């Protein structure tokens, strides 16, 4: 078969260009009229052909303008990035058509037809999203059942946390360690007492009332603080040459890594109380934090172990030849280097931890996703599930995405040439 006639050449560049762009624009006009004007200009074809017309016309048009080294810079860039072969041309067209077909309705739902003002469900008219729902329930989504008048306590805790984290970036290295020590050891106690109250005349607020996004942060922050040292020790234990310690570490790590978090939470809720002396009561939130801590510590241990294994043997030998003992060697020489190597892994574990917190709904603690579940079953706000979950997804996405980007930057900054 001789396809020479439709094989575009540089000599007739402008003829082919005109022809190709013409076909391409017919395809686009077809799609546009189909999507926005509800008009099918190719309706006289059988339905399947009519459906594929824009694709066929567009692909043929793109084929005609695929001219290598045409001398026209724009055309070359387009050909290189969107149109390097027939297959790529079709893929590009499909992606563009999907964007044209689905992005405008989504944007309409999300912003242009959406209702932002009002205070009841009746204020939501039209097809768009009802963000009134999120506005009305915003306090509940952030603070759970925490009393409105006392929410400043949570706010102050988080402001302190954020400002001390901000200070770490600003202050010179000399003060940094004091702030880190404050954040690790003193701040958790202060925040815990401030939020739960019961001292200094603050009203006691039981953990059952905590909830919303702030609970997500509380659970992940405490679990992170505790799981890190446990993970480091487990990793050292797993690499220990003392068999009893090694095998118990391996057993512990593999046990937690082999089961889903949801069963661990079940265990903390229904099985763990059976293991405590009769009459002792441990707070539900505390049990959950312990369960998540142990669970994440096992993952953290594997991450840290990766760093330990990556260190060359010479580092150990050098430390030993300086007369350092086991602990001094590990905490002065090995750990600082190993931890630096696994920063992305640690960040990923923390990300997984944040993404796992919604699971605490199984024991009846309602963080953001749980609060939305509660709000959407409110008789006055039925049918708002989509808005609620889209809002929660957006919040979590912003948190997780910025964290993953930050860890990537950190990785680049800290990477030392070996």
């Amino acid at each position: 078969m001789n396809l020479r006639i439709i094989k575009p050449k540089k000599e007739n560049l402008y003829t082919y260009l005109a022809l190709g762009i013409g076909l391409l624009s017919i395809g686009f006009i077809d799609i546009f009229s189909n999507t926005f004007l509800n008009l099918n200009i190719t309706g006289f074809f059988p339905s399947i052909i009519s459906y594929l017309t824009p694709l066929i016309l567009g692909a043929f048009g793109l084929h005609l303008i695929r001219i290598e080294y045409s001398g026209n810079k724009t055309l070359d860039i387009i050909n290189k990035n969107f149109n390097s072969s027939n297959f790529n041309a079709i893929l590009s067209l499909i992606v563009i058509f999907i964007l044209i077909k689905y992005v405008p309705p989504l944007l309409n739902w999300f912003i242009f037809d959406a209702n932002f003002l009002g205070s009841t469900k009746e204020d939501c008219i039209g097809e768009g999203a009802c963000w009134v729902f999120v506005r009305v329930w915003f306090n509940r989504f952030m603070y759970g059942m925490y009393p409105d008048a006392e929410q400043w306590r949570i706010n102050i805790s988080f402001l302190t946390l954020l400002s001390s984290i901000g200070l770490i970036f600003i202050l010179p290295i000399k003060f940094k360690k004091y702030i880190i020590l404050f954040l690790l050891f003193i701040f958790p106690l202060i925040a815990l007492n401030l939020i739960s109250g019961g001292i200094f005349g603050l009203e006691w607020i039981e953990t059952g009332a905590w909830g919303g996004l702030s609970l997500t942060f509380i659970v992940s922050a405490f679990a992170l603080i505790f799981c890190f040292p446990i993970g480091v020790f487990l990793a050292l234990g797993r690499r220990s040459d003392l068999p009893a310690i090694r095998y118990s570490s391996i057993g512990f790590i593999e046990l937690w890594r082999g089961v889903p978090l949801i069963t661990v939470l079940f265990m903390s809720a229904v099985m763990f109380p059976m293991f405590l002396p009769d009459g002792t009561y441990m707070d539900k939130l505390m049990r959950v934090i312990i369960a998540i801590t142990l669970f994440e510590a096992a993952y953290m241990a594997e991450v840290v172990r990766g760093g330990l294994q990556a260190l060359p043997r010479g580092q150990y030998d050098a430390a030993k030849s300086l007369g350092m003992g086991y602990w001094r060697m590990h905490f002065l020489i090995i750990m600082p280097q190993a931890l630096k190597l696994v920063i992305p892994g640690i960040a990923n574990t923390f990300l997984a931890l944040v993404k796992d917190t919604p699971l605490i709904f199984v024991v009846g603690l309602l963080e953001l996703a749980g609060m939305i579940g509660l709000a959407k079953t409110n008789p006055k706000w039925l049918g708002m599930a989509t808005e609620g979950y889209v809002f929660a997804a957006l919040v979590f996405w912003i948190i997780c995405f910025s964290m993953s980007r930050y860890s990537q930057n950190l990785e680049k900054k800290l990477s030392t040439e070996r």
Partner: protein
Amino acid sequence: MNIKAFSIDLKNKKRLIPQVLTLLSIILAISYFTFNAQVNMGNRGIAFGFGFLTQEASFDIGFSLIDYDGSHSYARAFLVGLLNTLLVSVIGIFFATLIGVTVGIGRLSSNYLVAKFSEVYVEVFRNIPLLLQLFFWYFAALRALPLPEQAMNFNDISYLTVKGWYVPKFIWTNFSMFVYSVIAAIVAIIFVSKHAKKQREEFGKHIPSFYIGIALLVALPALGFLIGGVSLEFEIPVLKQMSATIFNFRGGVSIIPELMALAMALSMYTATFIAENVRAGILGIGKGQKEAAASIGLTKAQILKLVVLPQALRIIIPPTTNQYLNLTKNSSLAAAIAYPDIVLVFAGTALMQTGRAIEIVSITMGTYLLISLSISSFMNWYNQSVAIKEK
């Protein structure tokens, strides 16, 4: 555990003391917890034991692959839950691999749009908690489907409604014959490819084993249909009026929305991680490998098949199996949308009814542990068998 490792030089107290202390504290902790558990169970008048497994479960399960009703035992209910967990995991793994490989290759595409599209997909779905995605699909997306009387109709054989997805049911006669013919075809293909490899390596003869394989895979089951007495009928779901206003489909197989939502959420979430693995695997093959392959005259397809893929798969498969494992464990989120998996059926309903927290939670965790350990030991075996054998 090997005894040798424990044969410690007694003189070396420095090594002995920490070990003894560790073991002692573990034993102490376990005995403390066991003691408390015994006291607590004694107070409540329940004795530890697994006898309850044979008792009548007397609760119904909405979706089951095997025969089950309230008169069956708790052990049978456990089996139903386990099968449902495995079912959703297998479906999830299949689609996660499909999407993941496509997106992973897409991210490396020279086509700017495709690469960007794939990147956006990965960044969006990786950074949203799986539970929220599950809720979104189940409570928002699938609830927006039409009622049975206005079902989305796929060529009159399959219907998508808010109550589930109705697909034709396969009714086989002589199904075992069909299975045998497929097995025979697979055995024959293995034979042919071994023979072809031998011929190629020893005599340089080329046998088109791929086409022979496809022919065998079509021909043998076809023979089963023609002379083996195998036949296949379809039972197509039809809309029936149940009462004045209620319509529903009868016949066919109904895929419940819980299963759909769970499979969608699991596969779309896990696919992002698989895509990253695939991308890392392909990027991990040095340019030199491809250039070397090209310089000895291999064609593009041969380079992909003989040089790039074998090496890339060695990088891709271990982390991907890990993701499969994660997917299986994440399928326990089913409890959140009431898909009757092992956690919901066993650690949920059965635990409520019997109150045997320790036994039931241990069985559930043990089952997951067994699945995890068996997959990871298979993984270790596989890693060893594909590792580059250095001389």
